[in-house]
Structures are given as C-alpha cells and as structure tokens.
C-alpha cells in the first residue's frame, strides 16, 4: 500500500520559496501579488509564478476586488495537504520496517547456509 500525495500538491508545497508565499497568504488573509512581492527576496514575476502553482494545486484562490486581484488560502485543501504529508512520514516508517524484516531474514538465511556448508565440510 502506498500513499501518493498528488503531484501538484507535492510540488506546490515541496518548494521552499513557494511555501514562503503560501505562509504569507495564510498569515495575512487576503493579499495582492504586489504586496507579496514586497515581502520576499525574489521578483514579482517569481511571486506570480508561485501563486499560479499554488492556485493550480487548489491551495489558494483569487478574487477580484475593484482593480486588485486578492489571493486567499483554501482551508479544506490545506487541511488535506497537511494530512497527506503526515501520512508520508508514516509511509517511510513502514518501508523501513519492511527493509529490516527482509535484511534480517536474508542474513539469517546466509548464516544457516554457512553452517550447513561447514557441517558438510567437516
């Protein structure tokens, strides 16, 4: 069994600079791209690109307000993202346990074969 966080969600949150943008949207409710660009050490263009990816992943949505476009977080999607990523850590734990079982069984088999060989040779 494997949990696959969907690609778009993963690449949206996996990127640290994008996470910075998401953080700012979460912390400030409704914000414009130009306000965001003033808060981060990368260009306005990069901010727009990050917002596009976040919107594509469903993590933020936009609303036009007068002349401005304002971004806000989509709370249900954020909740889903959080749960999926927690599950990812659990998934690695399961894989490590499986590796442990396989390696210990292979090792026990090797010792057993070695003993048999020695007994034959004696």
């Amino acid at each position, binding site marked *: 069994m494997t949990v696959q966080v969907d690609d778009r969600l993963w690449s949206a949150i996996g990127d640290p600079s994008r996470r*910075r943008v998401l953080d700012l949207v979460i912390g400030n409710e409704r914000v414009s791209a130009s306000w965001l660009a003033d808060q981060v050490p990368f260009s306005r263009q990069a901010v727009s690109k990050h917002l596009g990816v976040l919107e594509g992943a469903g993590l933020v949505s936009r609303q036009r307000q007068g002349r401005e476009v304002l971004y806000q977080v989509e709370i249900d999607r954020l909740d889903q993202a959080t749960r999926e990523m927690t599950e990812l850590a659990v998934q*690695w734990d399961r894989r490590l346990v499986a590796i442990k079982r396989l390696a210990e069984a292979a090792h026990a088999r090797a010792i057993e074969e070695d003993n048999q060989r020695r007994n034959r040779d004696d």
Partner: protein
Amino acid sequence: MTGLNIEREILIEAPADVVWRIITEPEQMSLWFADRVDLVVEPGAHGYLSFGDQGGPVVIETVDPPTLFSFRWNHPRDEVPAAGNSMLVEFRLTPEGDQRTRLQVAERDVEHRDWAEEEKVRYADEHREGWGEFLDRLAGVVSAMSR
C-alpha cells in the same frame, strides 16, 4: 534546515552489505517499495517506479556501497528532475559492529541553486523551520480557521 524534510531511521540486525542489497537491488526493492521497479542502480541512471496504476520517473544520484544511496523523484511530470523541482531521497547505512546496521532515510527538497547567494542567506535566515514544524503549524492554522 530550510526545506520540506522527512527523516526516519531504524536499527537492523544484519551487516550493512546485506541491508545494501535489500535497498538497491530492483528485485528486492519491489518487496518493500514500489510494485514494479525498472531501474539500473548507477549514478545518473533514469528509471521508473510503479505504484499500482500510479508511478513516476526517478533519477539515481549517488551509489556508494554500502553507505549511501540516493535518488530524485516527485518532480513535475513534464520536467527533468534537478535541484529545485524534485525531492531527494537518501539512504545512509552506518555499521554498528559487524552484525548490525543503522539505516537512515531522508526525503528532502534542496536549496535553490539559481538564487543569488545573498538571497539564499536571507531566505535561510527568515525560514529556518523544518518540515515537522511546518506541518504542526499548518495543522494549527487549519483547526483555528475551521472553528
């Protein structure tokens, strides 16, 4: 650390070379990892992991038996995995005596190499939080907003 990081470890009662084979031989990988593993374990090799009807490409990065094995995955489907668009999975094996191995796995994203050095430093200063803290905080935000 500045990224999305998962770090886990386990102690195995077997020598490192045995653990290494379980981690890197495609036949063994299909027992604990993907349902199907199409992979040649060589630095730079491109492969594919299938999980049921899903799956994705991987690119092997480091093969240093029996201590370090790493690959990149989870990049956007139409892109070649590289620093900045993918996750790096690293397996580190540390012998503890001849019969026991500590196995550590980390899944992490990596710094943005296309940034200017001062941007990186500034970013790192502003954003030292690791993956675990980020998750905890998100969960807090979610429950506060749902109320």
